[in-house]
């Protein structure tokens, strides 16, 4: 082409020849819900024809994408060329590449390919999603990118450090069982299925299938049982439900966290897990913004803790180059580990934080009373009408599920130099008690606020000044 000078680096490597399948699937995902709805609602027969008409251009565009897409390893960085009419050439400097992550579901593994995500520290999602490459190409990409980076780092520091991968944590089946029992993800699945069913509008279907089942139950006979027997039945039903979701949780843990391993290579922490969809992530230590430890009542029962990290930039569910969204998944450092292991992982993830030297401060003296008043108010507000509604008989069932929440113990650590902004806020209630709350904002925070409520106002002001000056 005349516009290309000889200085331009022309990428030559191509995607795997079956890439179009995955591209089509990715496009189809956007239409999945309407399609499912059509199937479930049993719409007009014409629909299948329309669906076919829709699918043909999708596959054509997927093939076109595969045909045109080129990538290669340039002298300075990864080069990706997309499109012919609207051509886009992207250069990603090796030095700026933080992660080369892969994701492989069952189909990927069957065809021995992987979806590759190239991320830099810029934030706002992946720099490039390469869909899909065969495993040799992935290996080559990893080696080329990290070799280039290591060379650049070596010239900066003056000597090449021998590369060694240390295994920090590996979850045995026993640990996965514990995780499944602690973590109640099964409930989320049940809720998601229920939500999907109602969303699609096939609750009619549910009605048709479940209604006769419910009616066949001896409800009339139930009323003739004594109150003790009734209570027994209801409690066993609840227990059955809880046990069922726990079994589902254990199953999920075995699938998603199968062969979970955390390894360290210099400043990179690598996480791999999954039975069907094998996920491999790289957490670069300089990007770690905060480490969160969670210890619930169940964790304590099993003598375990969970560790997650916040990472600056990517992986937080923003739109990537092609508008695809990465699911905002939790970044596990350790789904379950013993307190001793948690301590060690804390030290590895945030080497400059000396946690054991921390001098823990209490909240404002009035905080206990204020919280007690607030919780009793809430309890009265919710449980009294509930109890009245249930004729007072099942009141314990209303109150009990709240209890485990009170036993959640959480520890969040963020290094001072990761603090982006500090905000001190006082509500009218705070001012009445002379209290304030402090929120610390970091680059990677998602769900967990680094928020300290119920502080003495002077303490909070002092803390804010200290953090601001840091």
């Amino acid at each position, binding site marked *: 082409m005349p516009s290309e000078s000889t200085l331009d680096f022309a990428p030559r490597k191509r995607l795997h020849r079956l890439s179009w399948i995955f591209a089509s699937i990715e496009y189809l995902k956007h239409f999945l819900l309407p399609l499912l709805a059509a199937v479930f609602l049993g719409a007009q027969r014409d629909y299948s024809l329309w669906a076919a008409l829709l699918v043909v251009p999708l596959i054509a565009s997927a093939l076109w994408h595969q045909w045109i897409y080129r990538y290669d390893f340039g002298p300075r960085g990864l080069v990706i060329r997309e499109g012919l009419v609207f051509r886009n050439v992207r250069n990603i400097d090796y030095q700026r590449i933080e992660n080369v992550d892969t994701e492989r579901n069952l189909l990927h593994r069957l065809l021995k390919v992987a979806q590759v995500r190239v991320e830099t*520290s810029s*934030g706002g999602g992946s720099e490039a999603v390469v869909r899909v490459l065969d495993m040799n190409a992935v290996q080559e990409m990893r080696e080329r990118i990290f070799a280039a980076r290591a060379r650049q780092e070596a010239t900066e520091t003056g000597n090449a450090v021998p590369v060694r991968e240390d295994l920090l944590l590996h979850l045995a089946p026993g640990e996965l069982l514990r995780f499944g029992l602690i973590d109640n993800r099964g409930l989320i699945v049940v809720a998601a299925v229920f939500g999907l069913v109602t969303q699609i509008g096939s609750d009619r279907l549910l009605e048709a299938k479940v209604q006769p089942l419910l009616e066949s139950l001896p409800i009339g006979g139930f009323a003739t049982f004594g109150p003790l027997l009734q209570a027994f039945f209801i409690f066993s039903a609840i227990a059955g439900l809880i046990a069922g979701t726990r079994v589902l949780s254990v199953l999920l843990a075995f699938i998603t966290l199968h062969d979970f391993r955390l390894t360290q290579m210099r400043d990179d922490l690598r996480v791999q897990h999954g039975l069907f969809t094998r996920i491999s992530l790289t957490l670069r230590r300089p*990007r770690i913004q905060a480490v969160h430890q969670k210890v619930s009542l169940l964790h304590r029962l099993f003598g375990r803790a969970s560790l997650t990290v916040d990472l*600056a*930039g990517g992986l*937080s569910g923003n739109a990537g180059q092609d508008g695809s969204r990465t699911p905002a998944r939790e970044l596990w450092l350790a789904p379950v580990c013993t307190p001793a292991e948690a301590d060690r992982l804390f030290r590895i993830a945030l080497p400059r934080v000396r946690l054991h030297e921390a001098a823990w401060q209490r909240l404002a003296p009035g905080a206990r009373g204020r919280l007690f008043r607030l919780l009793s108010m809430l309890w009265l507000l919710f449980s009294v009408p509930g109890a009245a509604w249930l004729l007072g008989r099942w009141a314990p069932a209303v109150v009990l599920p709240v209890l485990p929440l009170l036993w959640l113990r959480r520890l969040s650590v963020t290094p001072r*130099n990761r*603090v*982006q*902004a*500090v*905000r*001190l*806020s*006082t*509500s*009218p209630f705070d001012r009445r008690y002379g209290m304030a709350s402090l*929120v610390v*904002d*970091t*680059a*990677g*925070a*998602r769900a967990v*606020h680094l928020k300290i409520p119920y502080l003495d106002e002077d303490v909070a002001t002092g803390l*804010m*000044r200290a*953090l*601001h*000056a840091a």
Partner: protein
Amino acid sequence: MPRQPVERTAIAVWRWEAIFTSLVIFIAGVIPLFASRVPVGISIGLGGLAFLLLAAWIAWYPGAKYRHLGWHLDDVGITIHAGIFWRTQSSLARARIQHTDVFQGPLQRHYGVATLKLYTAGSHFSRIELPGLSHDTAIHLRDALQSADGSDAV
């Protein structure tokens, strides 16, 4: 901490904004009321009450907002005070500011005030706003907040 107030003329901007919002609320609320089958007496009563409440809000809110808004510049960065009932103090270090905006709407331009918007790489309050500055102060603050060495730390 010597806390700087914002520009007094900003009160006029907020008052106009309050008037416009009130008008929209009033019209959207009262016209359906008179069109409905609610007795005229009750409609007039409710309309009058809404009018009084909105008038009180217009009279009180801009001044209150002004009294609780302030800023303070130090060696490290800026601290912004805001909020009438739920009050906040946001501290932001110079090195953490990614980029800044000085924003003026038509009304603000007429009164010569501007809003300074500061962006960080943070996640929960990645944009912190300071409204009601005079345009000159906003520009001055923006320049003062540009880090001297241009270093950026995530």
